[in-house]
């Protein structure tokens, strides 16, 4: 098989093929970003509390233990749909009640969030739970 493909054919495949698929990808990106996603992310509800909540999420590195819509660490429960699973008040009480100090059990640190940070975080989780995810996760347990 070594002789069927020449080096210049392989080189052409690398440059030509890559360039072609980069262009296809940019085309798909354009459609996704400017036409498709705006109809799916309910950005009209992206209020200042949601924006602030995302910063809280990032500042405390929540993604280091949890997944958010399936992405992150796999050490603690999925939070993309936690608002639907538990509700906002439960989430706030849970965060305030950490750590549980149950021996041998996975522990979440006490983050000492202010009331405002808690509210913003819940708004962010609520917004995240309403993104059109093609019905992922399969059920409410995440």
């Amino acid at each position, binding site marked *: 098989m070594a002789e069927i493909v020449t080096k210049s054919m392989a080189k052409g495949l690398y440059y030509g093929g890559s360039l072609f698929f980069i262009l296809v990808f940019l085309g798909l990106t354009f459609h996704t970003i400017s036409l498709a996603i705006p109809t799916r992310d309910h950005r009209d509800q992206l209020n200042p509390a949601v924006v602030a909540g995302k910063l809280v999420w990032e*500042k405390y590195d929540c*993604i280091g233990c949890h997944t*958010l819509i399936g*992405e*992150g660490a796999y050490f603690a429960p999925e939070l993309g749909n936690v608002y639907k699973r538990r509700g906002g008040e439960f989430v706030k009480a849970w965060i305030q009640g950490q750590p549980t100090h149950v021996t041998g059990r996975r522990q979440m640190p006490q983050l000492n969030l202010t009331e405002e940070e808690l509210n913003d975080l819940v708004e962010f989780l609520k917004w995240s739970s309403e993104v059109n*995810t093609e019905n992922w996760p399969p059920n409410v347990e995440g």
Partner: protein
Amino acid sequence: MKYSSQAVAKPYFIAAIALFVGQIVFGLIMGLQYVIGDFLFPYLPFNIARLVHTNLLIVWILFGFMGAAYYLIPEEAERELYSPKLAIALFWAFLVTGVLTILGYLFISYAKLAEVTGNQFWPTMGREFLEQPLITKMGIVIVVLGFIFNLLMTVLQGRKTAINTVFLTGFIGLAALFLFAFYNPHNLVLDKFYWWWVVHLWVEGTWELILGAMFAFVTLKLTGVDRDVVEKWLYLIVGTALMSGIIGIGHHYFWIGPPAYWQWWGSLFSAFEPIPFFLMILFAFYMVNHRRHQHPNQVATLWLLGTAVMSFLGAGVWGFLQTLAPVNYYTHGTQVTAAHGHLSFYGAYAMIVLTMISYAMPKLQGREANSNKAQVTEMWSFWLMTVSMVFITLFLTAAGIVQVYLQRATDTPLPYMTVQDKIAVFYWMREGAALIFTIGVVVYLISFFVDKKERVTT
């Protein structure tokens, strides 16, 4: 070693190995936290251990890539490195930045670190793998740009080969895509969309160019096969990698907000992603079987063949296992993903760097190869690490399949933590395999200190 400036590769390789050891230590701690949840709590919460584990991985692989570049680019360009002084200066800049950042993670709380580094003014932190403070990210950009400048100047004034061109294209792409790490939209869907431009287009795009170039270089040196044949294969490997991998990014866009057509694009294109890895196996075994000379560095040949096989298994097979949308619907964000992550990073990127080190380190010390005793010791470490990583992967895969079954693919789903308790036995077995891996790392370190000089050829 043909050019004296190739010697700057050595500190890069040593730093890579040191950080690799650190990564394994934190991996062991996390593995234990999976089953003894309060281990080291509150001194080392899981998220900190994890970001140290993953950031050390990225940094040591980058050190390895850079060391490889400083070794292979002068040799390919047939001239001395443009500026060895710049290479050494950037080495210290990168090492100090990296170590200070890790110390920051460990000794200040993450939220405090975000505050003191001004994250509130330009938020980029707190996203998986991009946890570094803004100032660290800027440091990385400076180091990478200086690195590219140095090598570009070397190649522009020297011989241009497929190997050094593909390598540099990969690194320039890596640098360009990293700029998306500075872009963090308020809208989570857009944030995730572009976050993958760094993460996916690194490991399933630009890094594969670097991997391919390193692989081709070592193959060329170890087998003495005709350069034109090696470079043809290199083009085929990186060509099929980009043609499948770029749109293959779609397998990350199934459930995070982009439209449903990505389920078709992503499934179709990522089904082709194993091809370059399969070609690498054909290439490696064909070339080694048709080698023109018997290279005395046999352990480097073992690493080379190992890289081909393990990257095909880890990136190719374990990736394909969960890449089709109907399967991924159930496996997305489970231990199946973790299994794939471990075998693909070890099999592709850790092993290619260890291959390069295995080939280049003796040369940097003025020998064609190490003594038989040193090589046999290193071969032991190869088998210990590689076989135990296969077992880590198998145990995580088993954990993931049971997790999917109990939590997702059932009419009576159980809560996350209930499921975690039920699969603890797999986590214990994984930790056992990780201990064997650690023994492999220790044997690897020992191989550098056994008597290496019995055979002197250069």
